[in-house]
């Protein structure tokens, strides 16, 4: 099957779905042209992520990756959340199809973007956060042929 049971579970029953009106940090990455947008909302108290929500426009693995990423950072100190890698997200999902790895990259970047927003709002340094160009690398590096089948 295309997706692991874990991915399907997070896709069908996404954790932390929604928005936070009075969020302390909001990050949005991807763009509609590429077909994936993730938006992550953080509540941060004492450098601890006390609440997190997401909205995602995208494929099954994009939604599942967002859901998993929010689970993985919830209750964690910001510094630890910053260390979340796409690899960790992918592993936690029991893997993603090769051409879907970029979705986990997007989740990593969305978390970073939300934290960067939080830091900026609070006058904190952001130089340890890799800057995201607003669209996952996957979108443009997609080459014809890797599993891109059609009838």
């Amino acid at each position: 099957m295309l997706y692991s049971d874990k991915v399907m579970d997070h896709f069908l029953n996404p954790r932390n779905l929604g928005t936070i009106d009075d969020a302390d940090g909001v990050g949005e990455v991807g763009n509609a042209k590429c077909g994936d947008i993730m938006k992550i909302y953080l509540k941060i108290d004492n450098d601890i992520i006390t609440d997190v929500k997401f909205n995602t426009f995208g494929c099954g693995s994009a939604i599942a990756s967002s859901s998993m990423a929010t689970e993985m950072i919830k209750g964690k100190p910001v510094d630890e959340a910053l260390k979340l890698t796409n690899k960790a997200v992918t592993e936690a999902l029991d893997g993603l199809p090769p051409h879907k790895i970029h979705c986990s990259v997007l989740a990593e970047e969305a978390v970073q973007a939300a934290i960067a927003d939080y830091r900026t709002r609070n006058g904190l340094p952001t130089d340890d956060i890799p800057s995201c160009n607003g669209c996952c690398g996957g979108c443009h590096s997609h080459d014809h042929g890797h599993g891109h089948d059609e009838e």
Partner: protein
Amino acid sequence: MGYIYADNAATTKMSRHAAEVMLGVIENNYANPSSLHTPGQLAAVQLAESRQAIAEILNCEPREIIFTGGGSEADNQALLSAAAIGQRKGKKHIISTKFEHHAVLHTLQKLEKQGFEVTYLDVHENGIVRPEDVKAAIRPDTVLVSVMYANNEIGTIQPIRAIGAICREQGVLFHTDAVQAVGHLPIDVQADNIDMLSLSAHKFHGPKGVGALYARKGVALTSLIEGGAQERGKRAGTEDLPAIAGMAAALQDAVRDMDANTARVSALRDRLIEGLSAIPHSTLTGDREHRLPGCASFCFEGIEGESLLLLLDQKGIGASSGSACTSGSLDPSHVLLAIGLPHEVAHGSLRLTLSPENTPEEMEHIIQAVTDVVAYLRLISPVWNDLQKGIKNYVIQ
């Protein structure tokens, strides 16, 4: 309600009759049609009868039909054959459209690398090629026009007869990829002025892995597969007689029942179109009138197609988004872009393609499910959020 299969443009279930014919050949007529002995000659007879049956339906001579391993192979062979003819005549310009199937587009790209020049015609917002555009594009060095009979993603039917007439008049070869049309629409290669036509059995409840290429007498085919002299030396390999006979049976049935099937299936489709059009900021893709009886294709703003498909699947509905594509959300369909939809909207596409097996109850179920799923996905979509807040503007009103 059982699982609703609404992806008949991707492939169909074989009809009981075609499967029985196939099984009969497997059990009782399994010899090689090239063999001299009686079993071989009986196989040769069945091969000839299958060819005859298909030729009658297309209104051509049996010798103008060669059997292939499917629609893609037929498309490849048609284009490469025309290119070889063009090469010999010093004519290296080909006209096609922006929304052909990849079997055509990728072959054209290969030919471009070999020095051919290809004009890809617009298909306009309604997804229909204009014969006058074809006429205007023809040059003295044009060897071939290739325009599909009906599009596989949005179901639009092209003005093949008019395009064929222009090509005939201008002395240019005319190929049509009729993979989605054969068995669903009446086709007459004489009246339609077609020089080459590709078809594939699994699109009309026949077996997979078998198709045919019609090539008018006098159009020299180049063989893709060299070897024995099967198919008059134009396609080597032991003939897949069970599949060929199954294809002939399926096509005969499809043509016999075409009027009844069209009436039934287009009523289902019309109900779908009606029901789904009620979803706000949705649009039918492709012309409303000139479309395959079984094809309802939509775009919904603010959502992405793969998640839509997966959630419909959870609700027991098998559909597709653009063309069946496991690459998910990366490449929006070239067809939807060709009819002028922006990328972000093209991502939110849904294709429902019906067969006579579908029922009116299923349509109501589909309408309800799509309505619910679209609403849910919009709820969790940051794009929809922005649209609603007026941060972005709707493309689909």
